[in-house]
């Protein structure tokens, strides 16, 4: 009975059974003597998991105790012990009980875990799982044999020194194993990384390739700032590479042999065989020296177990490694990289810049611009002939060639690596085999395995384990694309570029050339120049040409003569047609349409009825091979912008502001690059959907709500500062929690080219936005003067703001609810004043303001002041407004700018009122007096106030005093009660612990007593815990509450009462279920009482109540010693 006794009975089946099988000697193959030894060791090993020092191999700790043992030193003892433990494990794994699982269940093959500390499930259970599912379990940590460290919690010291603790191995939560088992496959450990390392939102390791310019697009494993799976990944890569090259060298048979060996050992052997290669080749592989000092035991064991390995002289691996060096892109780079790049908006200050540097989509997007510049002249020619062609119309026989480079992104990268030509290769920015990076392109051998663009790397690796991932090489892409188009333009004047690797040629005019010969000529030339194969389709329309290419691929060409069109289309599935996506396909399927021939049976009218005019028309004509498009020049962009939807995580307002600035810079550069100016600016935000979990794709945006806002300014611009101001403003209008943002995009539309806008109006936007500069001061002044009088000025003065305002009035419920701080601007009761853009006013130089103020008779300053105050302290302002109400009681009520509030705080009587017929000014006036911000009213000059009040119906006025206008329904009512109820002290009948945060928190916050405030603040600080307990609040209070404080007697009495009431209610709440918490609270209270008179009094008041409660429920007294 030396083994653990796991449970008294019952539920942990696996453990118990495991024990049984351990104990039965018949099932254990080892001799009895070794068995007893093993047992002895096993007990020590258990102790080890209970907390003996980390790293059993450290010699110093227990060397002395082994002097008399049969082992020469500790090291040999440990190695012997480890060997025995392994044997034991293998024996168990091979017993019937665990061996039943078929090979498909060996999901942990190659995984070897070490369990550190306390875990749920226990290390014993985990061991059982590893036994059952083909993994290994290490009792002692060893960098050689362990692949994953499993633990639920790490002490600070280990976190701080993670590198030396984990030795670069992934530190994973045990749920990884459980989830893998339930998923019946090995899941990526990345999402299961220990929380302490990842934080709530993953941000540590990053996946995409570091863009060091010297080594372009090096394949990155996920070994970044955090030393995570470095070793593991390297090893896998090595194994892969080694396998690959060995297969090349020694032929199929050899590889076959390897496949037969057990997965675990395969890994060991390859690694072992790599070692000499590495040591012989140190300069190329920057592997840590730690990896080189494999000591002998395991090697010997492996060798004896697998004699086949020793047959191979290390030289063979040397050769393979040297080969690696020649194609420096791939394998050596894999081992060499240790990136320090960080990949989220959180950590990388240059995130935006780097993001676009490594974005393929960005490359494709900007390529167009490059193309237009390069072939500007030739497309001009196209334009003229194009119009001519249109005029001539259809009678002429048309012929189009669609030409497309085969798997462009892959073939460009591997064109110089002949040995990779026949291997499955895919392009992706990350080579982490378990990562969620998306494959952007795969070559044909890879496609044969089912690898497709858009797939996660880990899924692709599942489909095709030998898949080689190569990084982007944007420079090479540009070069190839340029060559490609050079060739096209050489052969044909009418070229429509679709993308960097795809184009249409209109060869209708070239009567003397057979399109087929032309196509093959072009293909040949493309291949000779760029080394990449192209496919061409020839057809009578662009559609047919494109469809033909589909058949032609890869590296071929196909001609669909016009008489064969129907035949070709007949069996074509509908989703092959351009414009038919998944949704449309499903819709068509519901109509029982799956092929083009079926589609052709449907009349145009019914298609248009079912799918809409345009789509119906498109389907009708496409199914007949008709396509009225003609080859045009590259389309002008309708909008220019930049979106970032990956790696977007913000902590605070500063983060997002910085990010917006960078984004604006990027957009501005793009505008300038296209020589365009824009007038409409749209900010798009992806906001995490409320219940969305962390996305499957690492750092992806996941399930999001898409929000967007736009502003149109009168004069087009590409100025960075203007963009930044606008985007900041737009962002402000969203009122979002920055932590929820998963993606941000800025689009500029209503584009004008730079030249045309130069000729344009002289009333520049610059004057509107750069009012800060002294030069334009004059202009602003004059314009501001206009504001006073004419109403048409509003268009330019506050162009964007009034626009927002106008749209608001239309959809008032949505925006007014969100735009608090702008509220003064929107409800425009006094046109000139309210139409002023407060932000503009605020930014004006003080002299200008003073001048404007005179025009307004002193109203302006008040408004600005008010606005500033409001932003700062909400709760204060509510108190202020309370006073206002009181004064409003006696004095004639006043009104200033009106603020519409969203909350439906109109209680019963008021609802009746607001439903009464309103006067003509209703659209401008607030619906009820409750919506009037009294504090604003206060600020207005007498005459204005009187005017406004006159506009309000009389009965509204008389209701006004009682209907205290407040800013936030619940909280702001508190001060009222406190104020009113001063004579009856407090709020006894309410339950202070209801709500989240509990009611008392708000009450205490507004209390005048310093301790109460303090406690309330404490709660807010602790609110990170889901609902902080009172005991934890008190615990913090001990450190923060000073003893010296003594408040006025009046205050004290009320505060004392409130705290006692709080405690009493807490006792009632907890007495049944959690006397531990009560006990803790009162122990803490007692400690507080020693320091502070206030708490001593509280303690004395509440104690009897407590004891009575305890007595009632437990028949005793609480022992607060």
């Amino acid at each position, binding site marked *: *009975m030396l083994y*653990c*006794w*796991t*449970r*008294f*009975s*019952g*539920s*942990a*089946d*696996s453990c118990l059974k495991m024990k049984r099988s351990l104990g039965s000697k018949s099932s254990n193959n080892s001799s009895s003597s070794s068995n007893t030894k093993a047992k002895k060791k096993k007990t020590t090993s258990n102790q080890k998991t*209970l907390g003996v020092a980390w790293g059993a191999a450290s010699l110093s700790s227990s060397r002395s105790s082994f002097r008399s043992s049969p082992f020469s030193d500790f090291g040999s003892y440990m190695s012997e012990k480890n060997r025995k433990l392994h044997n034991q494990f293998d024996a168990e794994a091979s017993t019937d009980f665990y061996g039943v699982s078929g090979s498909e269940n060996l999901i942990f093959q190659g995984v070897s875990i070490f369990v550190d500390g*306390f*875990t*749920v*499930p*226990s290390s*014993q*259970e985990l061991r059982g799982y590893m036994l059952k599912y083909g993994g290994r379990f290490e009792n002692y940590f060893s960098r050689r044999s362990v692949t994953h460290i499993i633990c639920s919690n790490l002490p600070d010291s280990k976190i701080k020194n993670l590198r030396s603790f984990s030795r670069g191995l992934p530190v994973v939560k045990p749920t990884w194993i*459980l989830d893998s*088992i*339930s998923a019946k496959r090995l899941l990526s450990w990345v999402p299961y990384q220990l929380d302490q390392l990842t934080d709530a939102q993953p941000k540590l390791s990053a996946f995409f390739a570091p863009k060091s310019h010297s080594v372009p697009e090096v394949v990155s494993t996920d070994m970044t700032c955090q030393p995570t799976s470095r070793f593991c990944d390297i090893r896998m890569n090595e194994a892969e590479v080694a396998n690959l090259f060995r297969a090349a060298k020694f032929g199929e048979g050899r590889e076959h042999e390897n496949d037969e060996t057990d997965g675990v050992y395969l890994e060991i052997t390859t690694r072992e065989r790599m070692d000499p290669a590495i040591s012989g080749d140190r300069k190329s592989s920057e592997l840590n020296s730690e990896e080189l000092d494999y000591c002998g035991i395991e090697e010997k064991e492996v060798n004896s177990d697998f004699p086949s390995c020793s047959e191979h002289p290390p030289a063979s691996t040397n050769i393979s490694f040297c080969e690696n060096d020649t194609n420096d892109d791939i394998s050596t780079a894999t081992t060499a990289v240790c990136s320090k790049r960080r990949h989220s908006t959180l950590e990388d200050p240059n995130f935006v810049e780097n993001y676009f540097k490594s974005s393929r989509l960005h490359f494709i997007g900007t390529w167009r611009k490059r193309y237009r510049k390069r072939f500007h002249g030739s497309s001009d020619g196209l334009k003229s002939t194009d119009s001519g062609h249109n005029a001539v119309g259809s009678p002429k026989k048309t012929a189009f060639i669609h030409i497309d480079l085969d798997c462009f992104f892959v073939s460009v990268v591997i064109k110089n690596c002949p040995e990779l030509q026949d291997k499955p290769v895919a392009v992706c920015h990350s080579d982490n085999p378990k990562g969620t990076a998306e494959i952007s392109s795969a070559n044909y051998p890879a496609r044969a395995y089912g690898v497709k663009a858009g797939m996660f790397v880990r899924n692709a690796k599942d489909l095709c384990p030998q898949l080689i991932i190569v990084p982007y090489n944007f420079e090479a892409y540009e070069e190839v694309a340029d060559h490609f188009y050079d060739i096209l333009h050489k052969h044909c004047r009418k070229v429509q570029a679709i993308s960097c690797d795809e184009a249409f040629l209109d060869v209708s005019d070239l009567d003397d050339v057979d399109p087929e010969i032309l196509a093959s000529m072009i293909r040949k030339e493309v291949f000779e120049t760029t080394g990449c194969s192209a496919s061409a389709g020839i057809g009578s329309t662009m559609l047919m040409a494109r469809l033909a290419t589909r058949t032609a691929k890869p590296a071929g060409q196909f001609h669909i003569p016009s008489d064969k069109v129907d035949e070709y289309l007949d069996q074509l599935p509908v989703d092959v047609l351009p414009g038919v996506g998944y949704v449309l396909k499903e819709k068509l399927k519901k109509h029982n349409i799956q092929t083009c021939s079926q589609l052709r049976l449907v009349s145009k009218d019914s298609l248009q009825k079912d799918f809409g005019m345009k789509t119906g028309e498109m389907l009708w004509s496409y199914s007949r091979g008709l396509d009225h498009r003609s080859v045009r020049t590259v389309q002008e962009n309708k909008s220019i912008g930049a979106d970032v939807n990956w790696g977007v995580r913000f902590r605070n307002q500063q983060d997002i502001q910085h990010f917006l600035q960078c984004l604006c810079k990027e957009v501005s550069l793009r505008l300038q690059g296209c020589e365009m100016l824009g007038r409409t600016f749209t900010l798009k935000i992806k906001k995490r959907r409320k219940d969305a979990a962390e996305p499957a794709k690492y750092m992806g945006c996941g399930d999001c709500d898409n929000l967007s806002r736009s502003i149109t300014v009168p004069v087009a611009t590409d100025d960075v500062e203007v963009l930044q101001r606008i985007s900041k403003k737009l962002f402000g209008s969203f009122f979002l929690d920055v932590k929820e943002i998963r993606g941000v995009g800025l689009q500029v539309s209503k584009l004008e080219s730079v030249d045309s806008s130069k000729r344009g109006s002289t009333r520049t936007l610059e004057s509107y936005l750069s009012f800060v500069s002294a030069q334009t001061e004059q202009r602003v002044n004059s314009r501001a003067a206009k504001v006073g009088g004419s109403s048409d000025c509003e268009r330019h003065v506050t162009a964007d703001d009034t626009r927002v305002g106008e749209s608001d009035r239309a959809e008032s419920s949505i925006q007014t609810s969100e735009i608090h701080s702008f509220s003064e601007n929107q409800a425009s009761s006094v046109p000139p004043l309210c139409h002023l853009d407060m932000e503009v006013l605020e930014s004006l130089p003080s002299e200008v303001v003073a001048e404007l103020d005179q025009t307004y008779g002193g109203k302006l300053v008040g408004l600005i002041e008010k606005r500033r105050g409001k932003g700062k302290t909400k709760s204060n302002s509510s108190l202020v407004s309370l006073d206002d109400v009181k004064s409003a009681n006696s004095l004639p009520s006043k009104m200033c700018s009106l603020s519409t509030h969203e909350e439906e705080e109109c209680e019963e009587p008021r609802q009746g009122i607001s439903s009464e017929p309103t006067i003509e000014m209703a659209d401008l006036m607030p619906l009820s007096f409750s919506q009037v911000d009294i504090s604003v009213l206060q600020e207005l000059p007498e005459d204005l106030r009187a005017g406004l009040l006159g506009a309000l119906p009389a009965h509204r006025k008389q209701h006004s005093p009682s209907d205290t206008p407040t800013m936030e329904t619940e909280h702001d009512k508190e001060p009222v009660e406190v104020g009113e109820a001063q004579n009856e002290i407090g709020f006894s009948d309410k339950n202070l612990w209801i709500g989240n945060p509990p009611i008392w928190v708000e009450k205490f916050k507004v209390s005048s007593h310093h301790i109460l405030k303090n406690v309330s603040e404490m709660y807010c600080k602790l609110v990170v815990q889901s609902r902080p307990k009172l005991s934890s609040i008190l615990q913090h209070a001990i450190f923060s509450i000073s003893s010296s404080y003594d408040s006025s007697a009046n205050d004290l009495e009320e505060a004392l009462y409130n705290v006692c009431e709080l405690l009493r209610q807490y006792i009632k709440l*907890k007495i*049944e*279920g*959690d*006397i*531990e*918490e*009560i*006990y803790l609270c009162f122990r803490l209270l007692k400690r507080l009482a020693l320091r502070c008179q206030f708490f001593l009094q509280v303690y004395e008041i509440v104690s009897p109540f407590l004891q009575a409660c*305890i*007595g009632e429920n*437990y*028949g*005793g*007294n*609480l*022992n607060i010693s």
Partner: protein
Amino acid sequence: MPMSRNDDHQSSSGELAQTLVEFLEVAVSSIVFLKGVYPSEAFERQRYMNVVVQRARHPELRDYIHSATSGLLPFIQKDLVERVAVIFFNKDNIPIERFIFKLTINPSHETDAAQLEFSLRSFLIKLPFSKPLLKTLPLDCRWEVTAYLRSLPEVGSSKDAETWIPTDTKQWQKPPLITPIKSLDSDPLCLQLYLEHPSSS
């Protein structure tokens, strides 16, 4: 969730009682160890719910604890048990210390086995830390497990009930001093573990 437990999820209330009885057995063992009634060699380290606990090695002691706690099963299932006490007496048979498990079961709720285990484990962890609160035992002490039922069980209603006899344990004159050790206030099970000492005055 561990796979083995997912299957148990259905039989919630029975499962809860079973787990509770198991837990009590371990907890009582731990308390007896903690009090040092027997030399520590009489116990061995074991793992239960993934924490280290002590279990009696002596078969009779083990059997006593086991029978005492497992005998509670039918009563717990019927929700009759209000408190389970481990009482230590001095040689005059006057109780000097009582460990009370006060339990309330809400059978209507689903039992989340893992959650329950997690909560119960904290009791086993907290228990050893109550040592400073304990009184040193006099010589010739004895101890017993007593259950307080909400109502008297029907005599002979089941065989299990026979192991239990009505007790004539002496009560303290004055209300005792209560020192809470650990509380669990969750939905199927509400469990308080506290110490009772005779009030000093």
